[in-house]
Structure formats: structure tokens, C-alpha cells
């Protein structure tokens, strides 16, 4: 069995194809735990994990918390408002204080790109990037890869389109890196105001019009339009965005037979996705959520679970 030789999970960049395959395989064997009557194994008993969410998050924080608890790790949740950061303490000081309590892992969500990288240099505990600014969100990409593999059976050779604000999306960046690494062909689509400079250098095609970009694709991945965050000049109105860049059944029809529709949530129904698509037969959005727990269990296990590369479900 391949070994997972990382202290941290900071992004998709440092992972090899073997690393990613190992995470997905591990997640597959751990997924069944969530279907049992007793949804808990003692694998990470005695380990402590800090969920440090400097930025609000419900889905990701809950998912990490559930994943840790199913593996019997002790968890502690901190948010910006409960930490001393509201008292003016710097991130590094907060991290050093946490380190003094000797956690095994710190799961960090932060509004600044590179914040987990800074922490990783400073503390002994492993760091999992649970989303940093507009940079990366690697566990989201891993759960998306897992879902694609589960639904379609492979990743390599698939044609994937990502639609939305590519510039400001950590989900897009992590998925672009992960998907291309795993051999998928990636197209990005959306208004030119939301296309970052030189995105082609990441190995993707740019087709701004979703109606054209969706044609012949196996996976249609949508990004959340951050209504609260987007500056006022990126697009003129929600109405115009919805009519030119939102995914409707009309557009989805151009995708390949058996194509799946993905969204990292939370949904803006009627903006980037119509309800008929979100609730339709091609949507795998809720599977993504379920798989999120399994993938995060796999990541926690591989980073701190006993001797690296041991049998996963040793508590069986």
C-alpha cells in the first residue's frame, strides 16, 4: 500500500496522483461507517483536533466535526468570535497558544489566502486547509473527485466544466488542480470579469458562454455566486447573471448523456442554478455532502492515524 507522507494538507498542489488515489480509496472504505447503526470507530481515540474557523462556515465545519467524531477523536471548535482574535491577538499568537495545548491537527478556515501555509511553518500540529481566502479548499476538491469517481466510475478522460466566479473561488482553484492532475479535461466558464489573469496556464480551456461550454461535458460543476462578497462591478445584476450564466435544464440538455451536476453549496436557487436542475435527476449535490464526511475522515486518518498506511478500519 502507498504511504501518505504529509504533515499538512494545504492544497491540491503538493498531492501526487498516488496521494489523491489513496485518499479516495481510504474514503471509500470509511464511507460504510456512516451507514452503520453505531457510526463510530475508535481509530483516532486519544487524538485531538482543533476546528479553527476564522470565517463563518456551517457545512465544512460540521462535516469536519462529524468526521472527527466518527473516528473517536476529541474535537474542539474555535471561531474568530470565541477566540482571542477579537481581542486583537494575531493569528500566529493564537496558533502558538493552541500549539502549547498539543493538538494533533488544526483544521483552519481563514479569509486570508496563505494563512494555513503560515501556520504550518509555525506549529508542530498538522494543518488542514479548510478554505483559505480565494486560494484553495482541498477537501472540497477531494470530495468532488470522490463523487465523480463514485458516480461515473473514473476521473481520467472526463470532460468537466466549472461555471461561475473563477477569480474568487477557492473551490474552482482546488478542483482545477485536482481534476487536471487526475487526467480530466477542464473548461472554465463565466463572465470575463470573473476570469483570473492567465488562468490557461493552469491547463484549462476558457469558454465564457455556459451554453457553449456545457456541450459535450460529463460533469457540470457550479460555483456559488457570493452575493454578499462580490464587488458591485463584476456583474450588473442578479437577474442578468441568472439569465446568461445560470444553469437551466435548457443548457444542461447540451451536456453528455449521464452527465452529473455538482455544487459546493450553499445554493443560490434561481441565480447560478435553477431549482429544476438542483432537484433534478442529474444533481449529485446531496451525495457531495455525504461524501464530504467520508473524505474528511480519510484525510484525518491518513494525517494522524497511527502508523501511516495501516489498515484503516482497525476498530471493526
Amino acid at each position, binding site marked *: 500500500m502507498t504511504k501518505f507522507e504529509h504533515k499538512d494538507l494545504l492544497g491540491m498542489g503538493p498531492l501526487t496522483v498516488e496521494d489523491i488515489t489513496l485518499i479516495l480509496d481510504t474514503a471509500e472504505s470509511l464511507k460504510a461507517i456512516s451507514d452503520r447503526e453505531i457510526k463510530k470507530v475508535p481509530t483516532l481515540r486519544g487524538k485531538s483536533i482543533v476546528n479553527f474557523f476564522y470565517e463563518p462556515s456551517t457545512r465544512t465545519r460540521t462535516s469536519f466535526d462529524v468526521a472527527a467524531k466518527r473516528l473517536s477523536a476529541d474535537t474542539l471548535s474555535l471561531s474568530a468570535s470565541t477566540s482571542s482574535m477579537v481581542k486583537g491577538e*494575531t*493569528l*500566529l499568537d493564537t496558533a502558538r497558544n493552541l500549539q502549547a495545548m498539543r493538538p494533533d491537527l488544526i483544521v483552519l478556515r*481563514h479569509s*486570508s*489566502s*496563505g*494563512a494555513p*501555509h*503560515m501556520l504550518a511553518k509555525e506549529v508542530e500540529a498538522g494543518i488542514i486547509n479548510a478554505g*483559505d*481566502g*480565494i*486560494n*484553495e479548499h482541498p477537501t472540497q476538491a477531494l470530495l468532488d473527485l470522490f463523487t465523480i469517481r463514485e458516480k461515473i466510475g473514473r476521473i481520467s478522460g472526463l470532460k468537466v466544466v466549472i461555471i461561475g466566479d473563477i477569480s474568487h473561488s*477557492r473551490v474552482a*482553484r482546488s478542483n482545477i488542480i485536482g481534476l487536471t492532475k487526475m487526467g480530466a479535461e477542464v473548461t472554465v466558464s463565466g463572465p470575463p470579469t470573473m476570469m*483570473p*489573469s*492567465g*488562468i490557461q*496556464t*493552469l491547463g484549462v480551456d476558457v469558454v465564457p458562454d455556459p451554453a457553449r461550454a456545457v456541450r459535450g461535458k460529463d460533469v457540470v460543476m457550479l460555483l456559488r455566486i457570493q452575493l454578499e462578497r462580490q*464587488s458591485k462591478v463584476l456583474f450588473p445584476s442578479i437577474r442578468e447573471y441568472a439569465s446568461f450564466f445560470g444553469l437551466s435544464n435548457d443548457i444542461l440538455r447540451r451536456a453528455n448523456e449521464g452527465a452529473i451536476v455538482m455544487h459546493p453549496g450553499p445554493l443560490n436557487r434561481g441565480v447560478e442554478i435553477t431549482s429544476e436542475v438542483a432537484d433534478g435527476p442529474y444533481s449529485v449535490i446531496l451525495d457531495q455532502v455525504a461524501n464530504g464526511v467520508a473524505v474528511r475522515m480519510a484525510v484525518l486518518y491518513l494525517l494522524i492515524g497511527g502508523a501511516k498506511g495501516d489498515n484503516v478500519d482497525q476498530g471493526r
Partner: protein
Amino acid sequence: MITWIRGGDLVDPVTGTVEQTDVLIEKGKVSKMLPRGVFHGDDAGITLVEASGKMVIPGLVDMHVHLREPGHEYKETIASGAMAAAAGGYTAIACMPNTVPPNDCRAVTEFILGQAERAGAVKVYPIAAISKRQAGETLTDFGELKQAGAVGLSDDGFPVVNSELMRRALEYASFYGLRVISHCEDRSLSGNGVMHEGVVSTRIGLSGIPDASEDIMVYREIALARLTGQPVHIAHVSAAASVDLIRRAKEDGIRVTAETAPHYFTLDHRRVIGYDTLAKVNPPLRTPEDVEAIKAGLREGVIDAIATDHAPHSSLEKDLEFDRAAFGMIGLQTALPLTLRLVRDGVLGLADAIKKLSWAGATLLGVSGGRLMEGGDADLAVIDPDYEYFFDSDRILSKSKNSPFIGESLKGIAELTMVGGKVVWEKR
């Protein structure tokens, strides 16, 4: 009492010559410059500085530093900045007005000069604000500021948005012979950017500052210089597009001059990978192509001067998340070795390089120095261009240690710096 600097290779940035010369100093002035072997002093009453195998250069003149006093003395004081300058081979520095309070009135200008006098290291020339509180609304009292000792005008750090105000500043400053120095940046285009907008910012997920944010304003200043017929100086040029605009303007006879800083011809945006806040600076480190354009601009004389934009920040502003950290890096002790690297790489001739570090700044600001002449102030440095060393933070005399060159191997150092015949720095 005579000081005899014996046998060094004297660099004259004006004639472009480098010749072995003895320099004699009396009462703070250069009394004689003689070919080696002509002067034979008896030892009595002579202080000998042996410089053979070394170079004797006019003291460097930096037209763009931030000294943080008054207001942020924990980052730098006039005294600590002046000592760092001396150690870098500088004998004169011009400090930007963005202090707290800003240098927008006689009292602050006089305070700066008083502190510099007390520090007693290098000459410090205050640059006053263009607008009161650097708010971009009302001109400062140019005449009074000049009387108090200001040598130039700039709202560095707070670009003048209002084009009419900039136009009037150029016109009004001409009456007093003060040069206006522009920090060219369209802040609405920079937005919340923290590094150069390009393939690296896209890859590492940081918000970008496009190069157009600089060259839009460079073009505005050129247009205003043409309109008014008055000179304008462009600070810290970082982008290839700006170099092109300045080149064309100069060809058209428009009175525009420019400076760049060593980091813009040494580092590019890839240095930011890893989120090292020491590489966060404004304008940002740009692409390798921009770096080449800056070098070409220096070589062709499009860029007149090399200034440091020495910008001290403490760990309080730098040990933070990248987007929260302050912009800026120190540079007084690295400018000489980094510029000598251009000489070794064949980009600039030695005398031309020294000229951009000394004579250019002095003449642009209309202050003395920048060239050694009989009868002139003995402001000079003895440098060893071949001395190789690791630049570690222990060498830094600034109060702040925010240099991206820490840990690098550098070549070339000031062994001795003299201001008005007085030794203000000597390498141990």
C-alpha cells in the same frame, strides 16, 4: 589636520572615469585630488585611509526613503535610518512625508532637520507633502516649506487622485524650483490587490494589482507635464509599460524623470510564492519581463535614478496573514550590492551605476553631493566591490528587519562612509 585617502580607484559619475587617485581632505572639504604617487605627506598631522584595491565613490544620495519619525519611531527613527544609510554607503537621503503627523508644514520639516542634526550621521533632506494631510484636496504652503528646508514635494503613499490638483502642484512648484515626485497608482484599479496581477497571483490565490494601475497614472503625469511645461518625477517605476511611456515622453522632449528601486530589477512576482510577506511591496514585484524592461530602462537612461524606497515595518506589520501585512521593504544596506550586481551582469557600466545611485538623485533634488570635486564637501564612501558576505539580520542597522534579501549572498559593501570629512561608518 589632513585626511589622506590613498590609492583608491576614484569613480567620477559625471565624466564616467575610474582612475586611481589620492583624495586629500581638509576642514570637511576635498582639498586636492591627485594621481597616485604625487603626494608624499609626512605622517605628522595626517590621518591615512588606505584605499588601494578599493573604490572611492561620491557618497550615495537616496531620493526616496521612509524614516517613520515622527509617529512610528518603533519602526525607524531618523537616527536609525541615517545610520543604516551610512552603512549602505549613503551620505544623503531624502525622506518622504508620510509620517504621523505628515510633513505638510514648517514645524514638521524643521523637526526632521533638527533630529537629523542631532543624529549626526548622514544629511537628511525632507520631502514635503503636496497636499495638506496628504489628503489630495489643498496644496501645502510650498514656499514656506522650501524656506524651512524641504527639497521636493510628494504625496508618496497617497497618490494624488485629483488631476487638477496635480496640475496646479506642478505649476506652483515651478515658482519655487521644487520637483514634484509622483507615486503613480490608480487605487480604484489596485482595489484590494496585494501582489502583481498575473499568472502567479492566479496560481496562489492572491488578489492582484494590475500593471495598468501604475502606467495609467504615469501617463497622466506625462500629460500634465506636457500641458504645464513643468518637470515631474515618477517614483519607483516597476512596470514595463511605464518604462515605455517614459521613454516616449522623453523622446518628445517632455520634462519627465524617473527612478526605480533595486527590488524591481532584482526580484519578480515568483518571490511571493509561499506567501512571504517580506516580498509584499507597493508597487508589487512584477513579471520577469518587467524586470528586464526596468534593466533596459536603466541602461538606456530612461530611468534616471536608483532610489531605495526604504520602507521599514516591524514584525507587528509583517508577521501577519499576507493580505493583512503592510507593503514595503527596507533597502538602504542592499542597494549598493544589488546595483553592483547589474554592473557584473553587464547591464550598467560602473560609473553609470554609481551615477544613478548618487549624482542623479542629488541633481534631481537640487542638493549638493553626488560627485567629488576639489572644494566640495568630503561626502564619500570607500567601497570594496568584491567583498562577499551573507546578508543576515545582524547586519541590519534599521530598527526594522523587513528585507527579502536576508540570507542571501551579496557582493560589495561600504567599508567607510564620510560626511563632511567625518567618518560616520566604518566596517569592522
